[in-house]
């Protein structure tokens, strides 16, 4: 379980102080697939960096399985419990071959060489990259690079995986690969996934959506409830799912439709 208790975080100092997170309290349970949705500058990446202790709250605390991220002694435990996949596919592969990159985390944790090899096999298989172990990272597509980054986290045997806008620099195929990977990991390994995004159509796929604006949680609930009020979402700079926009226009034109439609398929069902 991940708990954020009244987390506030400031950037900068004194006069130039900017509040990136403002009294955020949240609980994320094991096995959940949570989307954190927000416009640029809403604080969602700052939130992501708090979950594995890359940032420590200015006020309040973050607990991962009961361990405070502010506890320097336990920081490495937190880092192995919470994996994080960042935005830029080019900037998160450290080594010059895929398998060596996946080995990097376990090596840091002091895992034995034989165990590292079996973890690499498992992790690459989990993201469907088993055939690429010996490849050089710069010859992979964006989606493949991001999947290597996922495998690199998995090899540390985390319980929680944070995807910090991991799809935003990918083409549609790459994004689809990452989304499919998230679902598979959740299903097969029971990984708790926290997907940080500004794309409403991606948030729809989660079990739970948390909407951030100005560093504060403004909505929190299942997708159908969150997207029922798209005007409120527009107001905080978050778009609506595309099918929802079409449904909204149809309703305005006099078609009777439920206000909870999120996907094209739901819309087709409602119209037929």
């Amino acid at each position: 379980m991940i708990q954020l208790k009244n987390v506030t975080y400031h950037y900068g100092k004194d006069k130039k102080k900017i509040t990136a997170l403002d009294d955020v309290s949240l609980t994320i349970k094991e096995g959940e697939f949570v989307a954190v949705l927000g416009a640029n500058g809403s604080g969602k990446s700052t939130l992501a960096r708090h979950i594995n202790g890359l940032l420590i709250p200015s006020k309040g605390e973050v607990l991962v399985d009961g361990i405070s991220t502010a506890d320097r002694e336990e920081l490495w435990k937190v880092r192995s419990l919470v994996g994080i996949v960042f935005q830029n596919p080019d900037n998160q592969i450290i080594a010059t071959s895929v398998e060596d990159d996946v080995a990097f985390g376990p090596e840091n944790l002091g895992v034995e060489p034989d165990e590292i090899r079996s973890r690499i096999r498992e992790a690459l298989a989990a993201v469907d990259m088993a055939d690429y172990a010996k490849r050089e990272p710069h010859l992979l597509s964006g989606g493949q690079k991001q999947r290597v980054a996922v495998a690199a986290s998995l090899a540390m045997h985390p319980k929680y995986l944070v995807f910090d806008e991991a799809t935003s620099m990918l083409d549609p195929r790459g994004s689809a690969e990452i989304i499919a990977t998230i679902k598979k990991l959740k299903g097969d390994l029971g990984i708790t996934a926290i997907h940080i995004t500004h794309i409403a159509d991606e948030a729809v796929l989660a079990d739970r959506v948390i909407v951030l604006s100005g560093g504060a949680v403004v909505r929190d609930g299942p997708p159908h409830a969150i997207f029922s009020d798209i005007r409120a979402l527009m107001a905080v700079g978050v778009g609506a799912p595309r099918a929802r926009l079409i449904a909204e226009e149809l309703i305005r034109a006099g078609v009777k439709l439920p206000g909870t439609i999120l996907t094209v398929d739901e819309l087709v069902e409602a119209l037929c």
Partner: protein
Amino acid sequence: MKPGLAIGQYYPSDSIVHNADPRIKILLVAAYALAVFFIGNFTGFAVIGVMLGGLVILGGLAIGLVLRGIRPLFVILAFTLLVQLFTGGEPWALIGPLKISIPGFKTGMFLDLRLILLVIGASLLTLTTTPVALTDALEYLLSPLKRVGVPSHELAMMMTIAMRFIPILSAEADKIIKAQAARGARFDSRNPVTRARSFMPILVPLFVGVFRRADDLAEVMEARAYRGGKGRTRMRELKMKPGDWFGFAVVMLLLAGMVWVGRMPVI
């Protein structure tokens, strides 16, 4: 964008040369470089050439691939030869003010060959050894220096990262140059000051990009529990096989023999 194959970039294969211990290979290249410097005649070079040829065949490499490494040296080679040709003592013929010298020509060829052999020897190492293996071996070879304060792990880490980011940064530089060219930037001024200044619109964004990447990378490494060399294990443990010792001994003997032949005062 197709990333180009850099000179001497790793060429994957499963040969004896590829599988030899990288530490041995590094030590041998160092010994080889010394040997090439000690050899004083063409016979020695011929023998060395035969040995290199043997290694190229053992390594399953195409001759063309190996020779490509010399191409960027062409200007230096030509320059060396010309300088020696015209200044190398005893003139053989005169073309206007220029004195052509036969011994000069010989010296020029000799120096060129030495350079060519050095480069080929070094590129054999990089062609048959992965960057990962190279850095691992370097870290190992430098580790005795840890006691006198040389951060061998950190040096090896830096090398890895540098190698990893070379293709990325060259693609990025290419893109920025094009983007500024699209805004009318010209890089062909003859005035050196204007020319130097015209590179600012490329250098500034490139540096900004490098620092951003460095930040990103630091976060990634921290998130993957990196805290320096302490307490770290390695997936690849370097282990010497009997064959490695044998190969080492054979090549060392060959080199010694060549130096001996090469020091003899005959041609």
